[in-house]
């Protein structure tokens, strides 16, 4: 197997992109990544597109073939990868395996989703189609609803409090306000969303005990990377970022079938695999992008990946250990909470953000000092299909 590196990364600002089609967004992000890679006249051998809902939301299928044509990448191989909110991560994995195996040299991986084409209710319903079609979906379960129940259990078992969730929300919004790619470029105020009696309107209950600002927004957006074998990457001008390890694991479809629904086994297993392959451990990580579709998930994942012991993640967030400049900065991009969560784009966007961090390209107020390694966790379903990547800066 060959070592594989990210040589190009690009993203378009997430938000509500009424004027762009899904194909526009995928194209813009791809062009940015290919420009960034400095491929010149070289084309890519294959294209992998992570997307969850084009068939349902845009009534469009086979989008990878369409993108290859749109970008004049013909006759590159092209596949669409659908794996719920982990579609982006799965697309990266497919690209990674294709290059590592020696089958392809240059691969474009892009993830994108256009969710604001429909009302919030329909977008919530669309995301809920990943739940169990007999045991969950017909009973009206939504992902926020599931997250609410998960949070309640986590609170009861591990003592997580609303203060802990608030710390994540404030932190990620503060960082999102500094990120021009973020959907919600707005810092929040503790008084306005928590302490003041006015917070009852500003930050109403969404899925008890979760409130509005515990949830990520519904976003449009796309992100892309170009990968190639490390030895070829070393000849390019920008510092390559090695995909040092990845892991993927699944868990039961329904939450109630798990021995302990608060135990996100797939997160633990996927990150363990990624760390083993990278020959690194959690304490070696400089910066992490975790899948915080809900604030509780950042806390729970920070424990399951091994940054903190079970029950310590909430306290660590409240103590500022996961802030920019803290012990382990998490979601410096603003995370899904502020950068947004166009579902198919997220797994790729996390890697784009870590690539920028490891190339030391970000402005001072977001650049983790001397970042050498990064971790991403892309969480599909309610933790029933999780991908983790460990990335490493390579000095040329």
């Amino acid at each position, binding site marked *: 197997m060959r070592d594989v590196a990210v040589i190009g990364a690009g993203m378009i600002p997430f938000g*509500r992109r009424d004027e762009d089609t899904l194909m526009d967004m995928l194209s813009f992000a791809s062009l940015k990544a290919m420009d960034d890679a400095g491929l010149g006249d070289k084309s890519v051998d294959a294209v992998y597109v992570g997307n969850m809902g084009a068939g349902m939301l845009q009534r469009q299928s086979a989008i990878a073939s369409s993108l290859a044509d749109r970008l004049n990448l013909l006759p590159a191989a092209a596949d669409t990868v659908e794996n719920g909110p982990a579609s982006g991560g799965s697309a990266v994995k497919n690209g990674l395996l294709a290059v590592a195996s020696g089958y392809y040299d240059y691969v474009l991986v892009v993830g994108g989703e256009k969710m604001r084409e429909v009302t919030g209710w329909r977008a919530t319903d669309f995301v809920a189609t990943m739940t169990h079609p007999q045991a969950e979906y017909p009973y009206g379960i939504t992902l926020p609803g599931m997250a609410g129940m998960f949070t309640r259990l986590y609170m009861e078992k591990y003592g997580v409090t609303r203060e802990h969730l608030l710390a994540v929300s404030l932190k990620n919004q503060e960082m999102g306000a500094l990120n021009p790619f973020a959907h919600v*470029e707005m810092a929040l105020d503790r008084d306005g969303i928590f302490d003041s009696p*006015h917070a009852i309107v500003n*930050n109403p209950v969404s899925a008890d005990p979760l409130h509005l600002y515990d949830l990520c927004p519904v976003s449009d957006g796309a992100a892309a990377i170009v990968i190639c074998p490390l030895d070829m990457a070393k000849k390019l001008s920008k510092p390559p970022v090695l995909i040092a390890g990845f892991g993927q694991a699944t868990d039961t479809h329904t939450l109630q079938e798990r021995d302990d629904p608060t135990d996100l086994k797939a997160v633990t297993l996927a990150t363990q695999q990624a760390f083993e392959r990278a020959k690194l451990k959690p304490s070696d990580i400089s910066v992490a992008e975790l899948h915080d579709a809900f604030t509780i998930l950042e806390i729970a994942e920070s424990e399951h990946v091994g940054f903190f012991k079970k029950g310590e993640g909430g306290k660590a967030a409240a103590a500022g250990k996961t802030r920019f400049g803290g012990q382990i900065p998490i979601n410096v991009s603003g995370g899904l909470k502020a950068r947004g969560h166009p579902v198919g784009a997220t797994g790729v966007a996390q890697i784009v953000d870590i690539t920028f961090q490891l190339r030391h390209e970000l402005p001072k107020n977001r650049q983790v000092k001397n970042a050498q390694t990064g971790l991403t966790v892309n969480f599909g379903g309610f933790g029933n299909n999780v991908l983790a990547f460990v990335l490493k800066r390579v000095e040329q």
Partner: protein
Amino acid sequence: MPVDMELEAVLRPMQYPMPPYPPKVIVLANGKKMVIRQAVREDVPAILKSVHPCLFIERDYYDIVSARLYGELLAWYRYRVKSEYCLMGQVDGYLVGIVNGRLENEKVGMSYHTLAIDRGLRIGSHLFAAKMEYHMDYMGQDEVLIVAESPIGFRRWMVEYPLEETKIPHELGGGDSWRLTREIYLKAKPRLVVGDRPVPQELMDEAMLEIKFADDDTIRERIAGLKGR
């Protein structure tokens, strides 16, 4: 324009007496303080400057809401509507939202429009709640008739309160009215109507000094830009 006051006396509809709406201040999610106060007729030209750029924004039905609001405020300014009022939200003196309505009679209110010029801060929710508060708590009405022109309005008013469906035609045309009764209002009030009174003097002075408004491009970007929530 010369005004024939003899003719005006015929053309101008009668007005019910309306008590003043006492201003209040609300802390928004971003920590900024929004003063909600009642506009006076002389404020209308300044308010219209903020409404104007919204006339050309299709997103979320801003165009129709703004066009109608523009006409309603102009009608109030020119004395062509019965018992209209307007409340506005200001942050740092800047106009961030407008609501208006009128009295159909002493017991029944007619809700007109809610226009949030800054978005993502639940300004529309706060202003609509202030409007209902004015009808119920200060004018002592029994009910308010309401329609929504945008899906967002439908979600915020019909669903969140929740309002009662009626077969009463609303004067804005379109669908039948939905009704806020006193009972519904009192039930919804603890979770939807907030604000502190009195407004600290320095905030009130700033709001009263001048109605500031963002330039057209900024308004369009806030409402219809990429980050529009």
